[in-house]
């Protein structure tokens, strides 16, 4: 196994001075932000590395599943933070689809695709498999969910008169919001579809790159990658679809008008 030595790490950190010097030369006020981001990256990865090494060492199903649950909570929090609505309002809208979509995809992975060979004693809840795969599925679902909700909210605000016009002719909220729901789904899926079409030619996805660097056979690595990309796409679609469905059900009252929270926050008025 190719190892990263401490001296190598120090040298690569030292190389970070180069972009900082360029920013300084350009009088670009990005030095502080870069420094903070770099520090956060180092600290976060160090902590995660430590935690993961313990989780892998203990290899206890309860601890592994507990960590997966923590990942869902963190993903939900990240989405809620990005949107401007009260979190009590959005929590169920974001949490349940994320949990169900990525959780069920992970379960299918663990049980069906990887086929743990119980005869040899290979455990179903294997943190070395579940945590990185879940991270990829959840991370993508999280970004797509936030993107879709932002898009739906901004489309609805920009096209408020169109929504209004439709409901005054008898449309139900889901009928009047249908074009915006479609746009939100499209906006969140387009980057992933493009990515799927171009993968492998220029960039090797992180998981595959990692496996290859670690000495895995590329034909084995691509199988993992294909499986993960399919899983990600399914999970993202389910999570976004579920979130949009719940969101539209929650933002309109019995008269199909925006609920007070939305009227205040987004300025949608009849």
């Amino acid at each position, binding site marked *: 196994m190719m190892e990263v030595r401490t001296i190598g790490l120090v040298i690569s950190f030292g190389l970070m001075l180069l972009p900082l010097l360029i920013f300084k030369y350009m009088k670009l006020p990005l030095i502080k932000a870069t420094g903070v981001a770099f520090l956060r990256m180092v600290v976060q990865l160090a902590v995660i590395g430590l935690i993961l090494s313990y989780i892998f060492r203990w290899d206890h199903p309860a601890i592994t599943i507990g960590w997966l649950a923590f990942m869902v909570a963190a993903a939900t929090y990240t989405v809620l933070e990005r949107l401007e609505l009260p979190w009590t309002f959005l929590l169920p809208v974001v949490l349940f689809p994320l949990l169900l979509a990525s959780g069920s995809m992970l379960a299918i992975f663990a049980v069906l695709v990887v086929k743990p060979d119980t005869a040899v004693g290979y455990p179903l809840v294997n943190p070395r498999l579940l945590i990185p795969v879940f991270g990829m599925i959840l991370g993508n679902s999280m970004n797509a969910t936030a993107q879709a909700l932002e898009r739906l909210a901004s489309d609805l605000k920009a096209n408020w008169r*169109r929504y209004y016009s*439709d409901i*005054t002719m008898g449309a139900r909220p889901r009928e009047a919001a249908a074009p915006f729901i479609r746009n939100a789904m499209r906006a969140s899926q387009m980057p992933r579809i493009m990515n799927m079409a171009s993968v492998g030619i220029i960039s090797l996805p992180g998981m595959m790159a990692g496996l290859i660097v670690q000495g895995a056979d590329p034909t084995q690595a691509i199988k993992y990658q294909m499986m993960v990309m399919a899983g990600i796409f399914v999970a993202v679609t389910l999570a976004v679809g579920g979130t949009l469905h719940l969101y539209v059900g929650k933002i309109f009252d019995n008269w*199909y008008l925006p609920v007070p929270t939305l009227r205040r926050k987004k300025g949608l008025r009849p």
Partner: protein
Amino acid sequence: MLYEIRLNKLQYEDKLLLRNVSLDIEAGEKVLIVGETGCGKTSLLHTLNLMNPGYDGCIKFHGEPIKAHPPDTLRARVIEVMQEPVLGDGSVRQAIEYPLRFHVHRGKSFCNDRIRELLAALRLPDGILDKPVDTLSGGEKQRVALVRAMLLEPEALLLDEPSSALDQSVSAQVADYLLCCWDGAIIGISHDPTWQRKFTHTFTFADKRLLDEKKLQSIPEVTQ
């Protein structure tokens, strides 16, 4: 009775607009609401299709409180035509047929003869059906929206300044058709004297209350 309106208070958001309003509207009646800008005419209109929840009192539609009607059913029977209507970005025909996709209008279809009849009544040429909506003038859009609303055969139309973008002669003809020939009720706001003369029932609001109610005994005559 189409509407029985008994309001203690009418509000828009937190602003009090009208007090102690009592009015009745019969089926097929042509009702004009008059008052200064900001006196609550539009808000009153919007309580009738459940678009303004800010009121205290009771509004009955066919003897049942409007809140007991599902909003989609009520709004299919009482259609609002906006002053600057939204017609989408396709052709006029697409814009006209658009509401047919709503659940509440399932089973309805528009026959070409009826479409042509209504277009002609509002002085629009047949050929307009194939034109893209964004090439229409403001007055044409207003009339296309009126045609679309009438094709859905509602019991009443809610009109907020329906003639604001029409020129004088067309405006008079549109008013004649809507107020003297069309069967359904019309509850409208208009500052146009040509229109105002043709309504059969006028409610005037001032100082946050109903000031005056005037009812014509006979239907006004068609001018042309």
